[in-house]
């Protein structure tokens, strides 16, 4: 209890402690990402990570963090694609199921931010297609979310309305979800019920801003960098014309 109180004083939120917790589940996902992929025909080279969703009755936590678990090394291929990425908390999301919101930790331009977002704000369309993933019978659902079209496969055999990253809101656990260009791909790796071992969370709660403000700061940051980039390019150009820009693509397209 002392640990929890200290954590709350520091503005950190803790989640049901270490060790086994009844009514909880820990789901491992393989997360593949390659935002440079031009089409489905291209290889899904890029980076592969392991994410964990830990769900308790009123809250859940999703994390992709090198401190939590090892990050899988991508398969050996020619070129520069092999670099193993070790990022501190690529994705960290605390979902408050009771209050229907979530706190997202995200790297912005030059700083890390924490912002509040609506919980499971996807407008899903459930189709008739079915598929088996592992031993679970899954149904297909689709949605459009922040500029990308997603397909999810969920199973009502696990009646938990949740999923990797910000996904959820279906009548069963999402076991696989990917975008139409297959740049982003989450797939089931393991299920542990109840959750044992690392079932903890430490997420900032005092510096939380709105998502709108986060996006505004992100765009402002890019504008500032571009002013610098253009100034540098002008110096090199002398009397000639040059237009230099830098842009970022992220999972959510703002």
């Amino acid at each position, binding site marked *: 209890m002392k640990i929890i109180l200290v954590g709350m004083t520091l503005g950190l939120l803790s989640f049901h402690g270490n060790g086994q917790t009844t009514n909880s589940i820990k789901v491992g996902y393989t997360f593949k*990402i*390659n*935002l*440079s992929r*031009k089409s489905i025909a291209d290889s899904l*080279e*890029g*980076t592969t*990570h392991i994410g964990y969703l830990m769900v308790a009755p009123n809250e859940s936590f999703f994390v992709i963090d090198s401190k939590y678990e090892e990050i899988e090394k*991508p398969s050996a291929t*020619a*070129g*520069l*694609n*092999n*670099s*193993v*990425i*070790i*990022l501190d908390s*690529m*994705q960290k999301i605390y979902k408050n199921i009771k209050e229907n919101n979530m706190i997202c930790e995200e*790297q912005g*331009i*030059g700083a890390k931010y924490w912002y509040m977002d609506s919980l499971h704000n996807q407008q899903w369309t459930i189709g008739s297609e079915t598929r088996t993933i592992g031993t679970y019978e899954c149904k297909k659902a689709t949605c459009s979310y922040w500029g990308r079209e997603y397909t999810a496969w969920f199973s009502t055999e696990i009646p938990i309305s949740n999923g990797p990253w910000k996904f959820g809101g279906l009548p069963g656990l999402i076991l696989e979800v990917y975008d139409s260009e297959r740049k982003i791909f989450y797939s089931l790796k393991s299920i542990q019920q109840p959750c044992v071992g690392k079932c903890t969370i430490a997420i900032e709660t005092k510096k939380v801003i709105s998502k709108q403000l986060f996006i505004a700061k992100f765009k402002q*940051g890019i504008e500032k*960098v571009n002013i*610098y*980039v253009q100034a*540098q*390019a002008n110096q*090199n*150009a002398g009397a*000639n*014309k*040059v*237009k*230099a*820009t*830098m*842009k*970022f*693509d*992220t*999972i959510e397209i703002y």
Partner: protein
Amino acid sequence: MKRLVLLALIFISLSSVASESYQDLMLKGITSIKKDDVKISFNLGKFQEEDMSKIEVMLDKIAVTDLPTENSCTITITLEFSMGIFKATGSASATATTCKEAAAIAAKGAKEALVAASWVIK
């Protein structure tokens, strides 16, 4: 037509003057060279200084290659790298009296943009 000739010359120049580097870099993610725009795309798991130096080799080859002289030439160079949940793109388009000069300016601009991108998400 002039653009096609220029494209062919860029290919020939790169193949003959810097064939080894060009082939090497092709493996590392160059996706296209089109029209009079030189588009170079890299997919890096993590932005590293040694990767940047390899890119510089490529850019230097373009800059020093004897491109044809025209009254005005525009060259665009685009570099990109993916770093986890980000994809950064640095692009510069330069117009100068010679293609050689335009390429050199665009190369420096694209590099500056990519370096800036690598710093802000480090």
